[in-house]
């Protein structure tokens, strides 16, 4: 199939940026979306043009490094799918595809489709952990965890930190990301001692990074490639309120 791509090009954070149109031909339906961009980039290099910069690494949907807004939807229209796992069989000959970076105040553009998501690391630094130095852990079976709690914690823990939730949110909020970690740890007995301080510190860091507030629009969970549920945000708010009211 042949496609027309409209790609956001921006040479560094101070550049204004613009959409540039490219044609790609003979795209195989078995290609991944990123492989289609690889083919374009190989051509651009040989033509002496600057290839399109984009982040990617594992290309199997788990590292969270890739991410672009495709036809207005973070990671494209396929549900529960990262950009690297989106395949060209979902497009058809003649399609015009717009490709843009995550757009959010807290994610400045580095170049083209590459953005700076280091704010997420700083939210984790604020409290997204259980304090346990190596070698000091008790025997693993000394703390049984009810299966239901373990499973729910796992569901929240599958967040890959890609940032699609922020890109999709009209407020540029990082609530789903932050709530996923808070929920993962607060559902487990091991996470209880630091539960309130964690919620408070992570929420405060999220605000300090310039992410917007949550107004329950649910766009975040709709685009989340791991299907992190919206009710994690309720869990976060509950933990935060409890901590803040003390």
């Amino acid at each position, binding site marked *: 199939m042949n496609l027309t791509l409209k790609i956001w090009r921006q*040479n*560094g954070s101070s550049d204004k940026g613009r959409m540039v149109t490219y044609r790609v031909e003979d795209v*195989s339906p*078995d*290609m*991944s979306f990123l*492989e*289609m961009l*690889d*083919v374009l*980039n*190989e051509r*651009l*290099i*040989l033509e002496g043009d*600057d*290839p399109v910069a984009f982040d*990617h*690494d*594992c*290309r*199997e*949907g*788990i*590292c969270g*490094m890739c991410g672009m807004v495709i036809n207005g939807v973070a990671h494209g229209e*396929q549900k529960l799918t990262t950009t690297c*796992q989106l*395949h060209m*069989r979902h497009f058809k000959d003649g399609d015009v595809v717009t490709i843009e970076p995550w757009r959010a105040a807290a994610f400045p553009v*580095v*170049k083209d489709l*590459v953005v700076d*998501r*280091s704010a997420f*690391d700083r939210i*984790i*630094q604020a409290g*997204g*952990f*259980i304090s*346990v*130095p*190596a*070698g*000091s*852990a*008790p025997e*693993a*079976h000394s*703390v*049984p965890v009810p*299966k239901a709690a*373990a499973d729910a914690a*796992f569901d929240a823990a*599958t967040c890959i*930190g890609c940032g699609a939730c922020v890109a999709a949110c009209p407020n540029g909020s990082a609530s789903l990301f932050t709530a996923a970690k808070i929920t*993962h740890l607060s559902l*487990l007995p*091991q996470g209880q001692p630091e539960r309130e301080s964690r919620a408070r510190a992570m929420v405060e860091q999220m605000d300090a990074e310039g992410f917007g507030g949550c107004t329950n629009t649910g766009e975040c969970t709709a685009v989340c490639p791991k299907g992190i549920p919206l009710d994690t945000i309720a869990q976060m708010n509950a933990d935060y309120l409890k901590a803040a009211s003390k």
Partner: protein
Amino acid sequence: MKFRRRAQQQEEHVSLPGMYRVGEPIRDTKAPEGPIEERWDKRRFSAKLVNPVNKRKLTVIVVGTGLAGGSAAATLGELGYKVKSFCYQDSPRRAHSIAAQGGINAAKNYRGDGDSVYRLFYDTVKGGDYRARESNVYRLAQVSVNIIDQAVAQGVPFAREYGGLLDTRSFGGTQVSRTFYARGQTGQQLLLGAYQALERQVAAGNVEVHTRHEMLELIVSGGRARGVVVRDMVTGEIETHLADAVVLASGGYGNVFYLSTNAKGCNTTAIWRAHKKGAHFGNPCYTQIHPTCIPQSGDHQSKLTLMSESLRNDGRVWVPKRKGDGRAPGDIPEDERDYYLERIYPAFGNLVPRDIASRAAKNVCDEGRGVGPGGLGVYLDFADAIRRMGREAVEKKYGNLFEMYERITGENPYEVPMRIYPAVHYTMGGLWVDYDLQSTIPGLFVVGEANFSDHGANRLGASALMQGLADGYFVLPTTIGDYLAGAGTFGPVEEGDVAEARKAVQDKIDKLLSVNGNRTADSYHRELGRIMWDYCGMERTEESLRKALERIPELREEFWNNVKVPGDPEGLNQALERAGRVADFFELAELMCIDALHRTESCGGHFRAESQDADGEALRDDENFAYVAAWEWTPEGPVLHKEELNYEYVKMTQRSYK
């Protein structure tokens, strides 16, 4: 016993003319003597301690933030050292450990099914086809139990039973249930545990993480590793970072094959640069080909995706009995199917070790019985499992893997059998290290897949996560202290040594940007990968390896005269990053082929067609090859140092999974 090599034939290839020289053997690996179960305790007691006040004055660089590097950096930070951690990704959480699906082994014996530290040790040495060190492997098995405790305490959400206790499963090539797992995302969950521990140390001010920084050179001064030269991938700035010790945790080099299950960015540059500065490279030819990957769909393929081999617990592997049988799998009646693993290996069936399963798949495809595009695939069928356990149970166990398969292939594995084919997955080879995980450059430590230790010639499933975390949480933090206790005598880093390392980096970048030829770095990488896969892949012969050794230098020469790298040294330039990595893969590829050529035996993942028994199984040659091949780099060509392997506890037998 046909093709068996004799001692005098060994002498012939020692003089493979001009290819390499034989140097002094390695006599001391620093492993303590005495009963094997006491050696690690002994080492922990004999290791010198660093005074807590002094730790704050000592800087350790850790390159890579996967399970080994992330856990090492976090633990060294907890201990009070000043740690500088580097990764090429935009966050430490992205490292490729994250993609490990199946699980992590530990000798907890929670099932009471006869497991023990000794059994895990024994299985690992045997699985590695008797090419790993006993002392190291025993320590790995001992420490495995602590890893689970550590991970659970961090909140890693392992699968649990209804009673709230941890669930385990049996995994690739073992008959006990010792593999802990978190659905199909065990690597992700363990890595996030290490990442969170690391970020906690960042918040505490003990660790600085430099993301989007790539190590391009090692600084050696006064005979010791004292720092690294890195490129800030966003600004293009070349930076110098000095330290009292350097830890490389930069992962494996499977991407030398271009197509592998590694992440696109995985590369050999950090360890290759260290190798050229004096770190011996151990067993570079030992690569693992994973039997259960999604087959290639076309020339555009940029990487291969692994399907966890836990699928082999319930899936049955088969091909049609008849060559070129073009019928849909559902139309092939039961008696016209060949469940070849169950047929050839009745005791282990679909659970034979990876190397055996991979080669068996290649054999049936070579016979013309492969399925899917190009006949390069075999079926992994869950129809029986669905009948036996019900679709819901299968979904619970493997749901996310099935989804992943369907997303990539567009086929529904609940209805049509999966198609799988082997792909390069892991490299057992890596920088040579002693018992303390120290390389032949004092002060350069190597952990995780980047080192060569523990897995011998073949790694068992669910053992990579175990080794990475054992090295990072428990082994390195102890042994590096012994080295750092002497830091007072290290002296200052010579300016000339720093300048030389920086110049090497700058020269290479300038050269890559100045060639301005007609082919992209990726197209060279693809071609190099094809050479390696065809001639130094699942099956190697003297002829194929010699062909590779002719072709690689020619292609490398062409690369340096005809590669086209666009853009500037400043700013984000992903094409430049890739070209630099490809340049190093070219050099490594040659050493891999020399190593594979010199080792005329078959062992584990290294299968030399000339060395097989009457049944076509890998035939080891213990008389001549029971050693680690540690290669030294010299401008005149590689020098081989042999570290003899002695087995006091494990009885060396020809592996048999029949």
